[in-house]
């Protein structure tokens, strides 16, 4: 299951969050070679790991096996600060638009359904929280995977090479149909999310009800 970690329940997940920063270092710095993210303490974290960041972590008996994060686009965020050149027109910024980043899965889970669970998780969370779309910087070879998962993806600019890999800024619509498709593809349950503790809605929490199973 995918755990939702916000400012409100962060204290319940201190060790999982610490673990996730080490795994991010392992994957993004060591495996992917994003040397700009290297830090001497062996953790990968940046200016978009703040109190406002929402983490979605795939946990297996306390072990972090994958995850990603969401960050408000009303704040300076990666697309506006680091990758504005990937956007042809205006960088989207609105209370109901979040930036999605740092999608990772530990090596031994990459052939399984963890991908689909994490993709369902972002759609489900955004539906429940009133987020209408998310922006992301993606490697282009992932785009057909998003299509396969039923995600509606709009390019924000032409792809450009980043560290030798064609990369593009995109906006992904949050849709019940996309969640239904990815659930069907992965044979996933109605809810893939675990929520502990209380947290205020990110935008509003009145528009979406889980389908009955």
């Amino acid at each position, binding site marked *: 299951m995918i755990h939702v970690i916000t400012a409100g329940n962060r204290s319940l997940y201190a060790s999982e969050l610490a673990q996730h920063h080490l795994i991010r270092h392992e994957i993004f710095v060591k495996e992917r070679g994003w040397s700009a993210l290297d830090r001497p303490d062996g953790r990968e974290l940046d200016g978009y790991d703040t109190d406002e960041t929402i983490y979605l972590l795939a946990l297996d008996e306390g072990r972090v096996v994958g995850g990603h994060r969401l960050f408000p686009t009303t704040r300076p965020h990666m697309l506006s600060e680091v990758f504005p*050149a990937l956007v*042809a027109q205006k960088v989207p910024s609105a209370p109901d638009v979040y930036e999605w980043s740092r999608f990772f899965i530990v090596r031994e889970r990459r052939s399984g359904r963890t*991908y*689909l669970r994490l993709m369902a998780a972002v759609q489900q969370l955004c539906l429940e929280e009133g987020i209408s779309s998310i922006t992301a910087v993606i*490697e*282009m*070879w992932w*785009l*057909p*995977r998003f*299509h*396969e*998962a*039923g995600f509606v993806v*709009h*390019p924000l*600019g*032409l*792809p*450009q090479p980043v560290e030798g*890999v*064609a990369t*593009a800024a995109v906006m992904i619509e949050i849709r019940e149909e996309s969640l*239904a*498709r990815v*659930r*069907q*593809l992965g*044979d996933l349950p109605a809810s893939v999310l675990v929520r502990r503790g209380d947290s205020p809605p990110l935008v509003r929490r009145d528009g979406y009800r889980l389908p009955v*199973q």
Partner: protein
Amino acid sequence: MTGQSVDYGRGAFEFIERVCALRSATDVVRLFHEALGRFGYETFIITGLPNGGQRFEQLVLLKHWPAGWFDLYTREGYILDDPVAVQCRRTVEPFEWASAPYDPQRHPRSAEIMRRAADFGMTNGLCVPIHGFVGLEACVSAGGSDLDLSPQAKAAVHLMAIYACNRARQLLAPLAEPRKPLLTSREREVMTWTAMGKSAWEIGCILRISAPTVNKHVASAMHKLGAANKTHAVARAIERREVNI
């Protein structure tokens, strides 16, 4: 960004918007061919690559190839030695045909394929591998003789190719609707106990209903599942994942 790259982008975004709204594969062929034409491409194919005993011609989704070339290509089984097809399996990044490596000494057939393609006006091209969750799913390959191979033009073709392929797949192999459960929760309950070998009388005791009521639920489930008998209904319910044991 320069004015020119803005135009490349605009053309690609317009294409994407239009291709997503098309209702037939023929329209996708026409629009994609027209869009590629602005960069000098004259031919394209959107196809799966055969594994094991699969036949190439059955994996082709859309194509705008010279008829003679498709006949020659399939008759000669070129797909097995085509350096572009071989390279497509090795990379996730788009690549120019001219960069697909082969050794003309060791693979004279590869050299022959590239030469014959040129005879049909395809001296170079761009190939975009399409990867799904289980690996390489398809490739989009466009060719011609006088191509705009500037980085922006290639980026525009890369983007358009992925959307053309996605639309082709949606139109040619429509996704199954997510399945709605056929059975009521009571019917699922009864069928689950049935699957575990319980008799109508036993299920009645467990669920605190009468045996005839149990049988009524079984009959209703059989009817909904189009099953000939109780065993058949259990098998169908498990297959549809409405009963888990």
